[in-house]
C-alpha cells in the first residue's frame, strides 16, 4: 500500500458488495415477483438486471428484493416500485433490457416508464 488513493480505490470497489447489508431500511423498494409463475416467465434475469444496474448507478437508498405472486400471472414478470409518499408503480411483462431502462428513467431521474406499466398493457388498453 503506497498511498491513500490506492486504499480508496479498494474501498470503493468493495463497497458495492457490502452496501446491500445496510439497505434493509431503504426508501425505495423494487419488488420482483418471484413466485412459480414469475420464475417461469423469466423473472430471474429481470431481478439480476435490477441488482446490477442499481449497483452500477450507486443508488444507495434503493433495495431490490423479491416478492410472491400478486395474482396477475399472465403479466409476469411483474415488478413493483414502492416509494413512500408516492403511488406504487407496477411494471408488467418485464425483461432485463426493460429493467435497465426502468432504473435509469424511473429510479434515477424520477420519470415513470409509462409504456411498461400495467395501465398501458392491460387487456384492451391501447
Amino acid at each position, binding site marked *: *500500500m503506497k498511498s491513500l488513493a490506492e486504499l480508496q480505490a479498494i474501498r470503493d470497489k468493495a463497497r*458495492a*458488495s*457490502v452496501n*446491500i447489508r445496510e439497505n434493509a431500511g431503504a426508501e425505495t423498494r423494487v419488488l420482483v415477483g*418471484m413466485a412459480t409463475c414469475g*420464475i417461469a416467465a423469466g423473472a430471474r434475469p429481470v431481478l439480476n438486471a435490477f441488482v446490477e444496474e442499481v449497483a452500477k448507478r450507486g443508488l444507495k437508498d434503493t433495495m431490490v*428484493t*423479491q416478492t410472491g405472486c400478486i395474482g396477475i400471472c399472465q403479466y409476469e414478470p411483474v415488478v413493483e416500485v414502492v416509494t413512500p409518499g408516492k403511488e406504487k408503480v407496477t411494471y408488467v411483462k418485464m425483461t432485463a433490457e426493460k429493467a435497465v431502462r426502468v432504473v435509469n428513467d424511473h429510479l434515477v431521474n424520477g420519470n415513470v416508464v409509462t409504456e411498461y406499466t400495467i395501465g398501458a398493457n392491460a387487456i384492451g388498453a391501447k
Partner: protein
Amino acid sequence: MFRSNVLVCGGTGCTSSNSEQIIEKLNEEIKAQGLDKEVNVIRTGCFGLCALGPIMVVYPEGAFYSRVTPEDVPEIVSEHLLKGRIVTRLLYQETVVDENTTKSLNETKFYAKQMRIALRNCGVINPELIDEYIAQDGYAALGKVLTEMTPQQVIQTMLDSGLRGRGGAGFPTGLKWKFAAANQADQKYACCNADEGDPGAFMDRSVLEGDPHSVLEAMAIAGYAIGASQGYIYIRAEYPIAVKRLQIAINQAREYGLLGKNIFDSGFDFDIDIRLGAGAFVCGEETALMTSIEGKRGEPRVRPPFPALKGLFGKPTVLNNVETYANIPQIILKGADWFRSIGTEKSPGTKVFALGGKITNTGLVEVPMGTTLREVVEDIGGGVPDGHTFKAAQTGGPSGGCIPASLIDTPIDYDNLIAIGSMMGSGGLIVMDETTCMVDIAKFFLEFTVDESCGKCTPCRVGTKRLLEILDKITKGNGTLEDIDKLEELCYYIKENSLCGLGQTAPNPVLSTLKYYRDEYEAHVTEHRCPAGACKALTNFHIEADKCKGCTLCARNCPVGAISGKVKEAHVIDTEKCIKCGVCMEKCKFNAVVKK
C-alpha cells in the same frame, strides 16, 4: 453482483451449534437451485445473540433467522432465496410484527439500547476478507495517522479521548503510550493482550473472530505512536477460530503492504506475529505475558519497572487489550470529541459485556458507559428466565465482585464499580438468581484462582488455598463464626502482599459477597442452613404430606430408591439414602417436594 447476501454466524458459539454444516448445506442447496451467481454466503463473526444461535441474516431484506438447523436450509433456499417468501416460523420472533411485516434488528430490545464501536463489524463483514474491512473504512485510520499526523498528535488524540484500558484495570491508554514513547531505545514493541481467561468472558475472542483487522490496524497505529516496529499478539491456543482468522488477516495485510516495510510510503515499518499461550490465567497479567512471549515460564515479575520502560525483552513496550485496540481506529477517524461524547465523563466510550448465567439472552452486548445494570440485565438481557428473581451480578470474574439487586440501578463505569466493591474487569457479567448461594459462588471463583495461581509468591499460593479450605468448611456446615472473621482477615492479607494482579484481586469475590451477603455466610455457620438451597451438604429434600397425591412418579424416578410409600398415600424420602440429585423435585407435578 450478488443480489442477496446470506450472513451466517461463524463465531465460536454458533460454530459449536453446527453453523459450519449450515454453511455447507447452504452452498450445496444454492448450487442445486442455480443461485450460486446470485446469492453470496458469508461467514461472519459473532452477532451477539448467542442464546439464539445459530444465527443467519439474509439481506437485502434483513431477515433475522434464529436457531437454524441444517434441515431448515432447503426451505430457506427454495422459499426465501428463490421465491422471495420469508420463512416466518424461523425468524427471531421479536422481529415479527404480523404475518407480512417484520421490524429491523435495531428495533428489537436486545439491540435497541446497544451502541457498537468495538463490535461494529462483528456480524457485518466477512472477517477473512480484508476488502470487506476496507469497505467499512478499514485502514483509513492508519492511512490518516501515517500521512497526516505526528506520533505526538496521535498520543494527544488518545489522551484527549480519555480511552481507558478495557482489559480491566482501566488505565488511560494515551498515558501508557506517552510513557513508552518518551523512553528511548533501539527497539520497542506494541503488543496485544488476547489472553482472555476469566470464566464466562468472551468479548475479546469475538472481536478477533469477527473483526481481526481492526486490532491489527490499531496495533500499527500504536507502533507508530511509540516508535515500535514489531508487535506481538498473545492469544490462547484454546481460541482456534480466532487464531486462524488472525493469521489470515495478518497474511492479507502483509500482502496489501498494510503491514511490513514502508507502509503508505511513509517510511514506517511494522509487522505483527502471533504467540500462542497455553491457557494459564496468570499469563493475562502483563509482566507474566511478556515473560511467556520471551519463551520463559509464564510468571509475573515485580513492577516497577513498568513495561513502558522495561517490557518485552527488556525494551519499552505498550501492551493493550483487544477491545481497547478495537476502539482506536474509530477514535482516530471520528476524533477524540466524538468519543468523549459517549459514555460518562470519567469513562468515555462503550463497554462490551459477555452476558451469562441466569439470563434469557446469553450473549455479547456493547453499551455506552453509564448504562445501568438494570438496563443491561432487564432490557437487553431479557431478564432472569423461568420466573426466578434477580439476586446479584458478578462482574470482573475471579478478580471482581458481585453487585447485589439493591444496587441494580448503578450506572456501570470503572469508578462506580470500584466504589461498590466490584470492578469492571474484562467484561464478563454473570447473572445470578435466588437459587445461587453466594458462599458457593465465592468458593467457585477461589477454586479457579487456586488452580491458576502460578505459585511464585506465598500469599497467593498458600493464602488462596487456605481461603478455599475455609469456604469449603462453611459450605459443608462445619464452619464457625471465627472462621468468617479469619476469612476476612486473610483476604486483606493476600490483597496487600501478593506480587501481581492475580493474587491482589483473588480475594475480591469473597470480600464482596461478605460485604453484601454476610447473613448467608452466618446462616451456613450458625443454622447449618443454605438459604439458596444450593449447598448439597446443608440441604435435604422433603415431601410435604398434604400436597403429595401418592402418584409414585418420584419413587419410580429416584435413582437410589430412597423414596417409599403406597399408591395414593403420601410418600417419604429416606434422607440417609438420598443423594440430593433433585430428580424427584423436577418430576413432581404437585410441587410437593421441597428443599429444606
